[in-house]
């Protein structure tokens, strides 16, 4: 069966060039970078080079890159690290209602410790208003955390504007930049943030590695204790194969970025246009233009997300749904709800996220395959778009 992977926001395949690098550092150059001997020094040098490559890719200095096990850890380190380093300087954190759970649940944990959390609302397209950040800042504010692009609906946030506002008030700024890496160029110095989280497995590097950008001078407390690794900010034997592979993935991403941005954008627009043409009542979630090139997210009223996914899967198409129906939680997407979408509609979201290897022919196959699935599920549904809801909230 034809297999079409359209879930690149969940994870990406490791690029062969990147996997070969990882393999080498697992089997041949497997030294521990803290060791004095040749295998150890080789690992240390490879890691230094990877750090330089990663830094170059995001417009930072090598010493500003702290490798972690992924973006969940990077988000946690940024938020807990700033909070726990704040001391008497304040206990108020501003974030948005549409952040990834790695940010939101970390803020929840801090709230239980006594921190005050402001979760800013978003508009119907998922954007936060920079002036709302300005209004929310008070003398106790120590951190603003706003994602660069939303992982569900692809909306880009005005992070540069927000960073300017916050930093003018002396407030540290963090952004979860996970989804942008490899899709759009990133220049952190220009963006003006103090902290930014990235994940390897969203950009054709392996799972289990990511990094936190920490602008020189940012006050941050380590959250994991042990060895002297990563300038004492993150203990633990470094994942050398993962880190070196991530360095390679950054080089690759940088080489290809113009092509990839254009390629994803064209596939995205083809897919959106096709869905709008072929599926009655479908509508696009998120901002039309301030949007990740690789993100298509729609609601299809009258159909539940998981049911669509299962049918698509049987046709070889791997997609996802905001409903995260099987992911432990059965709740509708907090992102779609924050954008003002009703529960029953939010349960019918479909996310198709594109990657560098997808083709126009694959998009066309999706456009042929999906409409009959929707028709079939709608025919079976206990309610129809346009009808009054026959079930009680």
């Amino acid at each position: 069966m034809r297999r079409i992977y359209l879930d690149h926001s969940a994870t990406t395949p490791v690029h062969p060039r990147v996997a070969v690098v990882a393999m080498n550092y697992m089997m041949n150059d497997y030294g521990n970078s803290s060791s004095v001997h040749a295998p150890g020094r080789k690992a240390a040098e490879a890691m230094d080079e990877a750090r330089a490559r990663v830094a170059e890719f995001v417009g930072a200095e090598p010493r500003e890159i702290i490798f972690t096990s992924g973006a969940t850890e990077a988000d946690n380190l940024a938020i807990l690290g700033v909070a726990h380093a704040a001391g008497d300087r304040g206990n108020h954190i501003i974030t948005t209602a549409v952040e990834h759970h790695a940010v939101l649940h970390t803020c929840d944990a801090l709230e239980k410790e006594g921190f005050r959390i402001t979760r800013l609302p978003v508009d119907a397209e998922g954007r936060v208003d920079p002036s709302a950040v300005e209004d929310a800042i008070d003398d106790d504010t120590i951190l603003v955390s706003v994602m660069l692009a939303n992982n569900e609906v692809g909306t880009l946030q005005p992070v540069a504007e927000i960073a300017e506002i916050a930093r003018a008030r002396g407030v540290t700024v963090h952004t979860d930049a996970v989804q942008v890496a490899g899709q759009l160029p990133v220049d952190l110095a220009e963006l003006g943030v103090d902290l930014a989280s990235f994940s390897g497995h969203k950009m054709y590097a392996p799972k289990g590695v990511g990094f936190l950008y920490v602008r020189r001078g940012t006050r941050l407390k380590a959250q994991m204790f042990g060895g002297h690794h990563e300038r004492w900010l993150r203990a633990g034997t470094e994942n050398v194969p993962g880190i070196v592979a991530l360095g390679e993935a950054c080089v690759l991403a940088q080489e290809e970025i113009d092509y990839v941005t254009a390629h994803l954008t064209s596939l995205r627009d083809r897919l959106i246009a096709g869905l709008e043409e072929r599926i009655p009542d479908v509508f696009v979630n998120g901002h039309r233009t301030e949007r990740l090139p690789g993100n298509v997210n729609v609601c299809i009223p009258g159909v539940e997300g998981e049911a669509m996914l299962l049918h698509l899967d049987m046709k070889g198409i791997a997609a996802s749904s905001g409903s995260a129906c099987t992911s432990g939680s059965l709740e509708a997407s907090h992102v779609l709800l924050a954008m003002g979408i009703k529960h029953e509609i939010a349960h019918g979201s479909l996310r198709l996220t594109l990657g560098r290897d997808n083709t126009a022919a694959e998009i066309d196959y999706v456009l042929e395959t999906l409409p009959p699935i929707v028709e079939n599920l709608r025919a079976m549904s206990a309610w129809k778009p346009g009808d009054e809801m026959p079930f009680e909230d």
Partner: protein
Amino acid sequence: MYTDKVMEHFTSPKNVGELENADGEGRVGNPVCGDMMAMQIKVEDGVITDVKFRTFGCGAAIATSSIVTEMAKGMTLEEAEAITNEDVAEALGGLPTNKMHCSNLAADALHNAIEDYRRKAAGEDGEQ
């Protein structure tokens, strides 16, 4: 994550649709949880002679709806009332644990339909 039996009922659900002149109708679920089922029955001499359902929901919701209609058809009302959500899950070879609560409501829908039938029947009786 789903058993073959679940996938079978999900992909080829039995008894989808609406009955003309249903004797009883049940609804369970709500927009928040994301699973909503409507079930209709036809009853003759205390036996369920036909059942149809419509469901908005995930794989488990559709599969449980389908199988419960197959189970109920031909049963007496009392037998059908004795079907539990657990029986339904078991008939499908099991369901993922996180689906046991929200999406496994088909037996409830059937019971609601039977209750509706009994209420109406009592009303009709009353009118006679």
